[in-house]
């Protein structure tokens, strides 16, 4: 892709980094929450479910604003983190990761939950009778059976991160080389005079990346199901 400028390569690299960190960050909490929602009953489950899914229906700008209120340097948690640990999130690339992770989390939880609901509890009972503890049963039976759903969730989280705009611009800002991911760069180019060509290039890159992620997840799922059927 020789036709991308140095600056655009930086944008692409940053987007990839934020996307991968976002997918990695939602992986374990997403699996745990998906399992809790699929397999357990606890008081207030409906409320937890609603809160987890809120970022899906709220305007992203509102999510970004709330993140700023909580994690900003003068935010409820942010102030403590800064004062005692010297950690700041807002307006750094980590904020872009957090913003997109919060936005992507419901997607991850949803696909894990559906996959875990599909995983047959009878197979877990079989594992228990063969001597596997509940944790081992989860790791060796439930998790592998839910693998396609987990993979799909991770790809969705990555793709969501690539497309995240509203929460990122509010919580992380639009700082060249630090928080300017693909959508922000596209927006920026569109706003600057003569930036149409650059915007178009980035739009094409963005489309390619998103489609690539979807195709990759499709291939992974197909390979998994053919493994089970033994047609490998």
């Amino acid at each position, binding site marked *: 892709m020789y036709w991308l400028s140095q600056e655009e390569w930086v944008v692409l690299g940053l987007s990839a980094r934020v996307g991968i960190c976002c997918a990695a960050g939602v992986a374990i909490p997403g699996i745990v929450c998906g399992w809790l929602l699929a397999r357990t009953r606890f008081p207030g489950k409906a409320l937890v479910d609603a809160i987890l899914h809120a970022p899906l229906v709220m305007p992203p700008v509102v999510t970004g604003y709330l993140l700023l209120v909580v994690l900003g340097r003068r935010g409820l948690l942010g102030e403590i983190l800064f004062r005692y640990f010297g950690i700041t999130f807002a307006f750094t690339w980590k904020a872009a990761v957090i913003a997109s992770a919060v936005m992507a989390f419901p997607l991850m939880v949803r696909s894990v939950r559906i996959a875990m609901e599909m995983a*047959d509890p*009878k197979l877990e*009972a*079989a594992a*228990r009778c063969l001597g596997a503890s509940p944790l081992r049963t989860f790791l060796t039976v439930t998790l592998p059976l839910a693998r396609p759903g987990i993979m799909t969730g991770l790809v969705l989280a990555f793709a969501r991160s690539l497309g995240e705009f509203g929460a990122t611009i509010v919580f992380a800002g639009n700082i060249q080389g630090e928080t300017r991911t693909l959508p922000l760069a596209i927006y920026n180019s569109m706003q600057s005079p003569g930036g149409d060509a650059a915007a178009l290039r980035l739009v094409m890159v963005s489309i390619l990346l998103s489609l690539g992620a979807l195709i990759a997840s499709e291939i992974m799922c197909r390979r998994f199901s053919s493994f089970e059927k033994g047609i490998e």
Partner: protein
Amino acid sequence: MLQLTAELTRGAFHLQVDCHLSEPVTGIIGASGSGKTTLLHMIAGLVPPSAGRIAIDDEVLFDSESGISVPPHRRRLGLVFQDCRLFPHLSVADNLIYGKRLLSPGEQRFSLEAVIELLELGALLRLRPGQLSGGQAQRVAIGRALLASPRMLLLDEPLASLDWRLKQQIMPFLRRVRDVTRIPMLYVSHDSKEILDLTDRVVVLEGGKMVGAGPVVDIIQDPRVLRQLRLQGLVNILPLIFMSHDREGSLTHLQLRPLVANACGNPVDVSGPLLDAPTGRDIHAMLRPEDIALARTRLTGVSIQNQIQGHVVRLIHTHDRDVCVVDIGIPLMVEISSHGAKMLDLAAGNPVWCLFKSSALQYLGHPLN
């Protein structure tokens, strides 16, 4: 040795069992919905009883009074399910060693090689469960349970989803597991034939209640037991040895392997349908009680090939048919009409002749049959 006193209430269903099982193989017979599977799941720890006590040897697995409930993975009981439940994401080989891998070498009772040989699994190891036939999958499931070195095998209708021909292919394997591994077995089925082919010790369940426990010929005196057993297909299982083949007469001559020498002390000869099997080989054959007739004397001038002398051990009247237990070296259950029983004026101790056609004998564990 399994001690079991358990109660479970689920909606309108109430299960209540109280028994003491010490036989190598015990069958649990009952119609569907009688609580057989629930009973096995209680023993395995998958379903907690509402009250009761379950102990194996001297170890208490469940006791509602002292609040003991050992989780399923620490009970070391091998449960084999009707639907096999092989792990679809693992190969056959990995399925087999799933439980074995969790044990220390000292706890492992069988080597993978021994189980592969016992159940003839060698050709299947690289396959996925999705590629196996029903009979193969069930053999893998039995092997997987064995390799987890259980103290007892709990078999939950392992053959129910297989057709007659496949059942006959698996039965010899189950007998081999029984004789080679010597692991006590609890075998649940709604088909008496399968159970009686493995053992004559049964527990009979009816609507969640245990109505009888013990050797079949002893407990059929209870009308509820007899009714259940007849509903689930009451049959005689004869242990036989091939003696010779009469190809022209289309017959195979066999000899009964008596549990104890019979009254006359003579070997009992039996004729069955022609089957190409080597002389001296053991086989089990099934004989339905309703296919046997009784006579007070040996008959002449009849085409019936089998006339075996014995004496009446017990006579059980039911509202329509009578069941007569005749000792011919093994106890043989004979079902005759009440009218017939009256006509013969049968009583315990009477000598009688048991008559059945050679074609009434059905060889078991022989897929060619």
